[in-house]
């Protein structure tokens, strides 16, 4: 991932009639795997449609790969793939035929399109099913086929709208692994989801939307706090906490979990020494990590 923005959005507004879906969204989105999170109705899908030029903004500007949208929509669409949340597969076509067609629609010559269709179906694990009509596919297979059509024309950016919707745990894990692999393929991805753990697993940058506004835009690494230690104690929690406090640390206790911060020292060394002195043990010790859920629930706008 680089910090050079591939998408620049400034003061973006869009409304469905009287309902304001996006209210002055401003963000710079770098290359890599980007999470777009927010509750249902937060404006995620609307933002994706605006990036594709399917919808026209009421105000504001969008630049994707330095092309202004909607003015240069076709140039943008030549470099972008979209996996919509809803179904998009014709049930009376085989996966191979449809993927070949989708690749040709993306501008690939016929022979290359057929070859890419076969290759991509293999990559998403549908090689054996390539000559089956897609109407006979399970939900998991349909999601894979949807992802395949989004990348079959080798785009530079793919927009994935709720890629794990409707999948069972196994299917979800497989889809998330596929999404993580997009990085190896050299394809940037914007993954829209309201499942925060999916975003934490797959993305390295996150844009949080709430009520049509950007709540947070920044790297996921910012969510961990390296100068605060989080310790889960096995044994006398109070004694470990007291030991840490006596070494000048500030301690928060939540059950068996201690959060230790030390402005003038290393909280990890203090945690180690306090555990040793108390004759206790610990189940885990690491940097305090704020989950996306914590940030989202706090509702405080930040910008990374």
């Amino acid at each position, binding site marked *: 991932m680089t910090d050079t923005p591939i998408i620049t959005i400034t003061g973006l507004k869009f409304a469905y009639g009287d309902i304001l879906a996006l209210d002055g969204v401003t963000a710079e989105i770098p290359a890599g795997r980007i999470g777009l999170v927010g509750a249902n109705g937060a404006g995620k899908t609307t933002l994706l449609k605006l990036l594709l030029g399917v919808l026209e903004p009421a105000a504001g500007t969008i630049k994707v790969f330095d092309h202004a949208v909607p003015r240069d929509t076709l*140039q943008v669409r030549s470099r972008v793939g979209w996996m919509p949340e809803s179904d998009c597969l014709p049930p009376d076509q085989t996966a191979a035929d449809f993927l070949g067609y989708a690749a040709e*629609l993306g501008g690939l010559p016929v022979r290359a399109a057929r070859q890419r269709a076969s290759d991509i179906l293999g990559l998403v694990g549908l090689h054996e099913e390539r000559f089956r009509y897609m109407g006979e596919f399970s939900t998991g297979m349909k999601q894979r086929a949807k992802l395949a059509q989004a990348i079959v024309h080798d785009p530079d950016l793919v927009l994935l709208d709720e890629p794990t919707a409707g999948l069972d745990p196994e299917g979800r894990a497989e889809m998330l692994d596929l999404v993580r692999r997009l990085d190896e393929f050299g394809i940037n991805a914007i993954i829209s989801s309201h499942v925060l753990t999916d975003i934490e697993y797959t993305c390295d940058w996150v844009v949080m939307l709430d009520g049509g506004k950007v709540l947070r835009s920044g790297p996921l690494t910012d969510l961990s706090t390296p100068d605060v230690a989080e310790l889960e104690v096995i044994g006398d929690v109070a004694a470990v906490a007291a030991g840490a406090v006596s070494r000048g640390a500030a301690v928060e206790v939540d059950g068996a979990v201690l959060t230790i911060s030390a402005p003038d020292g290393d909280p990890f060394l203090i945690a180690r020494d306090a555990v040793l002195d108390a004759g206790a043990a610990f189940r885990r010790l690491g940097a305090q990590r704020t989950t996306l859920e914590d940030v989202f629930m706090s509702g405080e706008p930040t910008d990374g």
Partner: protein
Amino acid sequence: MVEGVVFDLGYQPHDGPRLGRSGARRALIKDGLRRVLGLRRKARKKILPATLMAIAVIPALFFTAFGVIAGEFDAAAELFDHENYFNLNGSMALIFVALAASELLIPDRINGTMAVYASRPLTTPDYVMGRAGSLAIVVFGFLWIPHLVLFLGRAWVGSSGFGTYVVDNAAILWKTAVVSVVYFAAYTSIAFLVAAFSKRTAVAAGVFLGIVMLSGLTEALVDAGFSVFGLGAVLDHPGYVKDWILGTNTDTWIPETAGIEPIMSLLVIVTLSIAAGLIVTGRYRRAA
């Protein structure tokens, strides 16, 4: 013995040419042709187009064969000439357009495939024109190829010789081609309008045929003195224009009874086509 090694090449980016919008348009038309003809679809999707095609072409082949065998092709031709042939395959085209228009437009909207088009270098007018282009190719072939067969058959068995017949009668080829386009435009504009607002292909086909058939009721209104209703006789406009272009009079058309000039009928067809194109484009822009 040669030992084989399998390499997992992983993801291979496309380094070759990209055809952009023109490639996308070509792909769209090709897909439309396959869809209309049921190619690369289940067998049942092929039955109806193949049957209608056969019904449209077989009479031309029959009269050609009849002429060859009997050696009296001119007598056979009088039974079934270019003018009357449109009355047969025009009806076949009506049914074909009813089914093909809904098959072209409805599944993309109902199955959500418009989202795929929205992420490709295509505009909504490209989409609508592409779909209409696919149907135009097939319907034109459907209407005009029998005329070509009939023309070549006549030239083959004609007493004046092949070359002389072709030279003397070449005008009928472009005239029948123009008439084929008129039939296509008249039927497809209404069929596309109906399909753009329907959810089921069979219902759309039925509604389209119903509208076209009901337009025959305008005859009663015209007979009652309301001539303006002759403009609504959508089923008769192409036939009336056909007789005008071919210089024949094969039937009494409702617009003719209403005192409407053939050019006016042609204008109705053109206006309907433009209006349908705009409405369908607006509808599909929202569907993406």
